[in-house]
Structures are given as C-alpha cells and as structure tokens.
C-alpha cells in the first residue's frame, strides 16, 4: 500500500466524481444547440431563456413551497423523535424508531408507489400536499439522524442544571436545549430542503398536474432542443445545492465548536 499510488487513485476518483458537474457549466455557456463536443463559443442565451419560460417558474415555485414545507415539517417531527430517542427509555423503542427510520432503507419507488396507490384508492386528488407528505416521510429519518447527533452531543446534566437553578422544564428547553441544538436544527432544515428540492421519483408519481422542478426537467429531457436550457438550469441548481451544503457544514462545525467537541466527519 504505497501512499503515492493511492494519492493518484484518489485524485482520479475525484475526477470521476466531479466529471458530470464540471460538464454542466461547459454546456450551459456553450453556444451550440447540441450537447456534444467540440464546444462552439460562449453565450448567455440559455440562461436568458430560463427567464422567459413560465412553466419553469411555476415548477420552481411548486418545488420551493414543497421543499420549505417538507424541511419545516420533517425537522419538527425529527425533533420529537430525536429527543424521545436520545433522552427517554420506553417500551418497544427499537421497533418504533426503526419503523420511523425505515424509509432510509426502502427503495424510493416502493414509498412512491404505495402512497400513490393509497391516494388513488381513496380517490384523493394528487397535489402539492401529497408530495409534501411523501417527501416528509423520506426526510424525517435524515432529520432524526442529524438531530440525534445534536441531542446526544449535549451533556444531559446541562438541562438538569437549569432545572436545578430554578427554571421549569419548558423554560429550560427554550433557554438551554434549543440554543444548543440550534445548529442541528438549521442543518436539518437545509438538508431536508435540499433532498426535497432534488427528489424526483416520489414527485413524479404523486405530482398530478402540479410538476416540481425535477419533474419538469424530466419532461424537458425528451426535447433535444431544450437541453442547453436544462444545462443552464442545472448549473444554477448545482450552485445552489453546493451553497446550501457549505452553509449547512458551517453550522454543523460551529455546533461542534460550541459543544467543545472534535470534528468527526460529515453528515451521513
């Protein structure tokens, strides 16, 4: 196991990981109607076309509503479950927590199909709300994983100290617990927002006639002429995701610093 050889392999692997993302802006700014080499020249036409596509704006709005609702809902549900799981011992705990975490190990198509079948059988119409429900289902496990980290990093005697010093359990939550898990809450909001914004399968099955951004994108992939515009859109989305991710990472590290803990890796 030579360090030098491994280092080269690692760099090649990073190229493999980043290849698609690097291509994205290349074609987004490429003055040619086909997505192929050689590149033609620089243009901003594709970005301008984004501004003049109402269907895209509608899909974006849908996606934003869904992503924000999902983030808030998942984080709230995640808070309850993470708090219960880290703080209390109760009967059937592994079963209950395991079941809530189940979507993490269930192929998304299964979640999508079962929700769709129930909606159809119940005669409920598909809407933004069905997507929010589906997205919340798959985001809650992520929220729990992040928040569980924050809760278990927190010394339990901090809350006891607050109660001992005269605060009620409720004011203790506001004065001590909440500020200390706040970095986790923000990270959870950001991660759930990102997952929901990017999620395709559930949205595809449950969207009805209110497409999300990925569903709209999927529809556009069939039209070769629209591809450069998609590349432009993709560039913006990737930029946004990376920005959000860096923010989330910033908050996570700050949380660790506050709790005086060593950094032990990323989110997953």
């Amino acid at each position, binding site marked *: 196991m030579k360090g030098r050889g491994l280092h080269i392999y690692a760099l090649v692997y990073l190229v493999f990981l980043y290849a698609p993302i690097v291509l994205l802006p290349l074609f987004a700014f490429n003055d040619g109607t086909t997505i192929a080499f050689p590149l033609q020249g620089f243009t901003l036409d594709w970005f301008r076309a984004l501004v003049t596509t109402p269907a895209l704006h509608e899909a974006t709005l849908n996606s934003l509503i869904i992503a924000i609702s999902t983030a808030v809902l998942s984080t709230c549900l995640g808070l309850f479950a993470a708090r219960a799981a880290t703080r209390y011992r109760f009967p059937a705990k592994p079963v209950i927590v395991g079941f809530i975490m189940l979507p993490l190990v269930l192929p998304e198509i299964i979640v999508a199909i079962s929700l769709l079948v129930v909606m159809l059988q119940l005669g409920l119409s598909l809407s933004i709300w069905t997507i929010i429900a589906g997205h919340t289902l798959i985001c809650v496990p992520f929220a729990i994983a992040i928040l569980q980290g924050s809760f278990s990093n927190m*010394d339990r*005697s*901090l809350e*006891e*100290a*607050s*109660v*001992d*010093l*005269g*605060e*009620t359990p409720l004011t203790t939550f506001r*004065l*001590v617990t909440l*500020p*200390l898990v706040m970095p986790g809450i923000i990270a959870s909001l950001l991660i759930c927002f990102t997952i929901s914004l990017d999620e395709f399968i559930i949205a595809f099955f449950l969207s009805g006639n209110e497409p999300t951004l990925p569903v709209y994108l999927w529809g556009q992939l069939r039209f070769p002429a629209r591809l450069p515009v998609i590349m432009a859109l993709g560039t913006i989305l990737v930029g946004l995701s990376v920005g959000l991710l860096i923010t989330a990472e910033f908050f996570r590290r700050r949380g660790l*610093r*506050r*709790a*005086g803990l060593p950094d032990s890796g990323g989110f997953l």
Partner: protein
Amino acid sequence: MKDKTPPRPIITLEGVHKYYGDYHALRGIDAEIGEGEFFSLLGPSGCGKTTLLRAIAGFEDISSGRILLDGTDMEGVPPNRRPTNMVFQSYAIFPHLSVAENVGFGLRKAGMGNAEKARAVGEALEMVGLGGYGDRAAHALSGGQRQRVALARALILKPKVLLLDEPLSALDKKMREQMQSELRRLQRQVGITFILVTHDQEEALIMSDRIAVMFEGEIAQLAPPQELYRRPASRRVGEFIGMMNFLPATIMSEASGKLQVEVPGLGKAELERAQCPGPANPGPGEIGLRPESLTVLFDGQDAERVAPGKVEEVTYYGDMTYYDVRLEGAPNNVTVSMRNMPGRPVLARGEATKLAWDARAMVLFG
C-alpha cells in the same frame, strides 16, 4: 471538628427506597443531616450514593419513604422549586453562555435589577477566586475554572443545601488537593450545608464533618471521620477506609465490660466492649488492626507486648516503608507501616523481626 452539640437537622431521610424496575438501588436510608454540616456520601460505584443525592435534588422520584428538607416533605416538589442546588460531576457549564451569564442563570426570576444582578454575579465570582472572568466564554475555561463557575452559579442562589456530585473526580491530583481545601474554606465562609458524593475515601476523610459509608444501597456506617477510621462498624468498612489488617481471633469471655480475646500470632488481649461494634459472643471472631498501630522493633528497642515474626515483603515509598510480616503462629501476613526517620534502617526481605502492638488500637468483629 465542630462543637459536639448536634446541629438542627436540615435534611431528614426516613426509610428511603428506590427501585429501578427490579433493581433495588436504595434500601431504606435513614439519616439526619445538620444545618451547616459538611456531609459526605462515600462508597464504591453503584452503591447508590449518587442516586440518593439526585433524589434529594429532586431528579429521581423515590419509591417509598420521605425526604424532609427543612421540615417540609419534598414529595412531588420538582428540582426547580427545591431549596437545593447542585454542582454536577461534569460541571454542566452552559457552553453557549459567558461565565457571567452562567453564574447569573438562576437569577432570571429573582426580581433583581440588572445592576444588582451584575453586582451579585461579581461577588459570587470574587468568592470563588474568578473575579474579572465574567466576560470569558464558557468553553475557554480550564477544568478547575469550570468547577469554580459551577460553585459560584449554585451558591449565588443561597440554597439551604449544596449538593456536590463527585465534583473533584475530573481534576488532576494537584488541582484536586487545592480544590479540597478551597471547598472547605468556602463551606465555612457561607455556612451552608454541603453534601458531597465521592468514591475517594481520603477526600471524604479530609473534608467532612460526618461521613455516611454506603454499600449496595444501604448506609453501612454514619460517623465523623476519626470514629470511622478508628472504629469501623464492619470488616467491609474497615477495608474500604484506609488499609486494615485482619487476624482471626477467639473470643474467650466477657466480664465487667471487658472482652478477653486470643489472637494467634499476637497472644491474649483485653478489649473494651466499645471496641467491638457488633455482638461479642464467645467463639471465633476477627480483629482488625491499622498498619500504623503495629511497630517494628529495631535493635535495642522493647515494648510491653511484643510478637516475633519474619519480613516477607518490603515496599519502600520514600517517606514510609511498608513491611508484610508473618507473625509466628499467624495464618496470614500483616502489613506494618514505618516512617523512615534519620538513622532508622530499612529491613530486608527474609529478616527476622519483632512487632510491638497495643490492644487499644484493635477492633473486634464477632
């Protein structure tokens, strides 16, 4: 030592039991803790001392019995409404607040003005030797400083009882010794009852007015340090506090408050009845002897009661030397501690020796 008249009890424990499911953590604790007393709960881990402390603070519901705090039954009173404050083992310094905000945390509802609060915080910090540290971030403090902040934070509320859960266990040896004397000074200064939980018998002996030794959820002995050391109530207490030698003994007779005992290796001894904490029925028993109550006799020295033996092991500590000696006719070794004074030799392994002993230093377990 405080004066002999017992102080007014501030805490009364009556038949306190605590179950965790099937586990019987506290098995009938009865005790009175006096006003202004420095009281220690001492025992090995898992003996229930921390559970008892947390029950007094209100963090654990007790299964049966009563805890009276200044005459009031604490059943159903949550920790935030009990006149007790706690110094946690981890210190539990709020990492998101400054030192001053930590110390002033409990004053939020005290109805003080900001200036008054700031003055109280300043005084509390001054008292623990951290004057001027108020603006520091909590996570930038050293272990000893955290401990002082925790103390100031609890004492600023003027509790009737201060509870300390192994507060010195996270500190290094030197810092621990410094904090031990500082805690005693603080306790005398504020005059508040301190209840200290510790597994360190030396710490308990140094600091306490009285100590409750706990094993398996029960108080094995409750006594001032000197009594605890000199007259342990059981072999187990004797073993737990300091070092103790045990030799089998035969209880011959009891007459006019004196006990006649035959100890193989030492000979016959006459003991006061008070030297035997339990019943003293004639028959087999055991005597306990501290290492320092046996003395190695060097050339030319003699004593009233002398027992011959052989040095089996020598352990040299610098200031002291510990000898394991097998007395003639004794079934097991005894350990003897000798101060290394100028001109006094250190014996070698295998040398024959003579030990002087005194029946007044013995404890008899029936």
